[in-house]
């Protein structure tokens, strides 16, 4: 039997569920289709940071600041505890060279209105105990926060369902049918759904969905690995990164071919402590394709780096590690908005390591675009076709 929906959202991660919620809130009949379970992709294999400081000054940081605002009231709005906490965040600085880079970064961020300061070692130690004495200082922003990404997905999905959305788990997309340049229906392993609007929020699998409409997008999986500790009393003040994390994130070319494993693996500290007390110790950035393995080299390199900056971690037991794939794009910005040449096919993927921070604002933007054709900010820099990849789109009937 043929089902119909006004909008089909593909992907049960923090992006897809947010979009489903924001559209349902505005009366749209949404069907969210997820191949496995909510948060079973990158959203279930990441850290918990909503960090603004790591965003590139410009539209990236503006989106993150807008998103941070939405987060403040989200638990109440969803009537679901997403474990949101406005903890603040720091970026540890190890040497003078890094200090120079961070001074520049902070200046640009302040210009855009981010509250962030440069602290010396003494001030930094007041905020975060157990820092290594050789550190030269740290940045600090009270606006950084964290959230439980899995609870976020479940919270968004349950709230969307209450507003009439259908959450269809264990449902794989087989094909997307188009005619005369318009989306006609979505074929899944549980039947076909007629719809005129499809939102591709499939994260690292977005290219697979795009291929169904003859489009190629430069979203590549970029593996990260995280080590989880036993629950311990409060130790980490909030989101604690290091300057190397920033460098690794925005300069992949710098990392290739280096013989120092920390550089080659794009290792950068990303420390946060869940409400339950487990500490997440990250991270790294590697282009290894669709490979979710955890590696011995990453485990030892990440932990050596982390304990060099925060020696206090040495006394704690590691109980788990995991790997996740970030949907990387060449310019570090997501692909948001309609695809030229195919009516009703909306992109919402490619958030690299910022999916958690940008989840609420992506939901708002995509719902604005679908309902009003525009949103509070010019999203041209995020256009899916900006990489010149939309010429031969399967627009034939």
């Amino acid at each position, binding site marked *: 039997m043929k089902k119909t929906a006004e909008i089909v959202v593909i992907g049960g991660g923090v992006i897809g569920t947010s979009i489903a919620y924001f559209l349902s809130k505005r009366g749209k009949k949404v069907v969210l289709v997820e191949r496995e379970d909510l948060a079973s992709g990158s959203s*279930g294999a990441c850290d918990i940071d909503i960090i603004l400081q790591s965003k590139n000054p410009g539209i990236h940081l503006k989106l993150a600041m807008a998103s941070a605002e939405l987060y403040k009231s989200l638990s109440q709005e969803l009537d679901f505890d997403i474990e949101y906490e406005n903890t603040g965040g720091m970026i540890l600085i190890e040497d003078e060279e890094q200090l120079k880079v961070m001074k520049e970064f902070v200046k640009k961020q302040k210009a855009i209105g981010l509250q962030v300061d440069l602290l010396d070692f003494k001030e930094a130690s007041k905020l975060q105990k157990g820092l290594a004495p050789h550190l030269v200082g740290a940045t600090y922003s009270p606006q950084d926060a964290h959230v439980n990404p899995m609870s976020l997905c479940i919270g968004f999905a349950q709230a969307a369902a209450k507003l009439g959305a259908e959450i269809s788990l264990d449902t794989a997309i087989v094909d997307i049918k188009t005619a005369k340049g318009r989306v006609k229906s979505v074929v899944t392993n549980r039947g076909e759904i007629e719809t005129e609007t499809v939102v591709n929020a499939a994260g690292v699998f977005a290219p697979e969905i795009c291929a169904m409409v003859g489009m190629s997008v430069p979203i590549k999986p970029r593996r990260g690995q995280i080590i989880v500790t036993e629950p311990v009393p409060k130790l980490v003040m909030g989101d604690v990164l290091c300057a190397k994390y920033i460098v690794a994130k925005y300069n992949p070319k710098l990392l290739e071919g280096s013989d120092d494993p920390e550089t080659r693996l794009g290792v950068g500290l990303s420390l946060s402590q869940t409400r339950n007390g487990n500490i997440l110790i990250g991270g790294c950035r590697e282009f290894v394709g669709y490979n979710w393995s955890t590696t011995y080299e990453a485990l030892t390199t990440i932990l050596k780096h982390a304990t060099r900056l925060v020696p206090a971690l040495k*006394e*704690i037991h590691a109980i788990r590690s995991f790997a996740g794939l970030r949907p990387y794009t060449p310019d570090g910005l997501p692909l948001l908005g309609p695809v030229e040449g195919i009516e009703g096919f909306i992109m919402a993927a490619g958030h690299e390591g910022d999916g958690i921070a940008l989840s609420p604002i992506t939901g708002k933007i995509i719902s604005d675009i679908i309902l009003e054709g525009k949103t509070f900010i010019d999203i041209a820099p995020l256009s899916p076709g900006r990489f010149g990849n939309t010429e031969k789109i399967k627009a034939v009937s």
Partner: protein
Amino acid sequence: MKEEYICRCEEITREEIEKAIADGATTLSGIKKRTRAGMGLCQGRTCRRLITQMLSKVKDPAEITPPTSRPPVRAIKIGEIVEGEDD
């Protein structure tokens, strides 16, 4: 009658797990995401079989496989991992 704990490490009761199944969880990872059962020190060695029995009311136990198995399979002090053999 006292609470009945299925996951001892994270103190998750039978009721919480039944709710997660009712909310649509069909795998051990799905229950782990929704309740934290299996996230503790023993990484599911104690509760995995009990939860599988609960899940087997809605799913064939042969298809109920554990979440991805990851190092470390024992709780290891981080200081010992970074203290390599060559250091």
